């Protein structure tokens, strides 16, 4: 669409600008402020330069949390994206069952995050949870509060349960936007199911899948409430992801300097990775 140049449009944007700037810039400045100062309480501050940044970047605690975070994010992306696409492909396209599927599938997305955590916490308990009891009954020694492997298994299951529907709904929206003529032409051309997927469905889903992956990437990097209710980062530190560690340092230990430095590094990592991914995915379109 041809847009006209109109500087007065700024007035339309002004309310948004004021609200978001108030919420983003003031707190962000506070964080930056803390990140370069040392305090011994009583509101006495000393200039600390980039000490905190160096400390955080060198600390094995941060490295471990970052490692766990990356492992978590890439695991859930590797499961949720293909799974979501497969489910979207198998969904009905017309009739009452579409609404039924969509409504039921969207349900996990609208449950408060701590309830999701609590639900899986109970669901997985070895004595009284359906999942825990079942696994133990059929012979697995499953206890997510004691064994790190089981904790990870539960954590990933929970995220798949919670968020795969987002990918399904996005992929489905991409699929239903493909006109019938494409499928008819493919049939006439003798295309196999795989060729239809590869040359029609996948290209048409590319845009929505980019959004899905971006959203899932950002949100999984920011995840806090569900794992903190489910495992609290344990057993030990085995499921302590970045946000959990950050809150432990900031609100638990009140080490504001390191927490602020860590926040900024964390935020920059997300921005950088999202930007790289977005640029790579959209560059092909412009060619």
């Amino acid at each position, binding site marked *: *669409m041809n*847009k*006209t*140049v*109109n*500087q007065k*449009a700024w007035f*339309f*944007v002004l*309310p*948004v*600008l004021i*609200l*978001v700037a108030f*919420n*983003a810039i*003031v*707190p962000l400045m506070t*964080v930056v402020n803390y990140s370069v100062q040392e305090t011994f309480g009583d509101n006495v501050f000393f200039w600390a330069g980039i000490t905190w940044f160096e400390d955080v970047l060198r600390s094995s605690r941060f490295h471990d949390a970052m490692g766990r975070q990356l492992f978590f994010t890439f695991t859930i992306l590797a499961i949720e994206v293909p799974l979501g696409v*497969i489910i979207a492909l*198998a969904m009905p396209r017309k009739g009452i069952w579409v*609404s039924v599927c*969509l*409504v*039921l*599938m*969207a*349900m*996990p*997305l*609208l*449950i*408060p*995050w*701590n309830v999701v955590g609590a*639900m*899986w916490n*109970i*669901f997985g308990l070895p*004595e009284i*949870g*359906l999942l825990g*009891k079942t696994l133990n009954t059929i012979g697995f020694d499953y206890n997510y509060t004691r064994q790190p492997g089981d904790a990870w298994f539960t954590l990933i299951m929970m995220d798949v*349960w919670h968020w795969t*529907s987002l990918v399904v*709904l996005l992929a*489905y929206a991409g699929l239903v*936007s493909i006109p019938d003529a494409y499928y008819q032409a493919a049939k006439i051309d003798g295309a196999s199911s795989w060729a239809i997927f590869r040359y029609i469905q996948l290209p048409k889903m590319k*845009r*929505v899948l980019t959004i899905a992956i971006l959203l899932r990437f950002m949100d999984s990097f*920011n995840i806090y*409430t569900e794992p903190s209710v489910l495992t609290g980062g344990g057993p030990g530190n085995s499921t302590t992801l970045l*946000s959990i560690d*950050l809150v432990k340092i900031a*609100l638990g230990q009140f080490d504001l300097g390191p*927490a602020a430095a860590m926040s900024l590094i964390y*935020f920059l990592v*997300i*921005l950088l990775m*999202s930007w790289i991914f977005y640029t790579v995915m959209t560059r092909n379109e412009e060619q």
Partner: protein
Amino acid sequence: MKRVSWLIPTVYIVFLMLPIYWLVSMSFKTTNEILGSFTLWPQNFTLDNYRVIFTDPTWYMGYVNSITYVTINTVLSVAVALPAAYAFSRYRFLGDKHLFFWLLTNRMAPAAVFALPFFQLYSAIGIFDTHLAVALAHTLFNIPLAVWILEGFMSGVPKQLDETAYVDGYSFPAFFVKIFIPTIAAGIGVAAFFCFMFSWVELLLAKTLTAVEAKPIAATMTKTASSSGYELGLLAAAGTLTIIPGAIVIWFVRNYIAKGFALGRV
């Protein structure tokens, strides 16, 4: 392949429903039954857990608080996002692309990073522990999303609509309210749905910015869970009740949901 394709969504939906079923079934059990034996459905069906929630103000006020700040947030976010989205979809102006991208970066910000600064900022201006504090904090994430969704829907409306209205003698405000808003009603519904969804499910900020007066139901649950030991039945009932508003909202937007999740721009 065609004949078994219904199996995949069915299995997936069963997988989704199992933990929910477990929570709901537990909410109808007595604490003794939950802890004492493993039962697939309530043996001694009881409504006691729900009775506690509906009679104890510390419980039911949690719902009132949550719904209050979610509503304020949704109205506020959509109201300010509408003109902004219109500007982005219709005009070019100095710095428009940078501004749009900057808005979206806020959507990427980890809530954990903002928890403490928000606490200090809102305490400083004296709105700590009010509904407004939570609603304002959530706008940081919801306004960018609402602008994004609405811009997508508005770009799908041909510009001729605006021009025709001006030719017909509408002033801009009259056109915007009487013609444009009804045209993109679906988009507004979808944007409101997303604002509702995020504000309803978020807990970290909501918990950090409230103490007593505006405490959300989700925070009541966690505090109760730790203070009164293991009242699982009560917890399950409270959890079950938090699912209901979401389910109602989904039902209303079910026809737009597929398009809405693609943020209006398939």
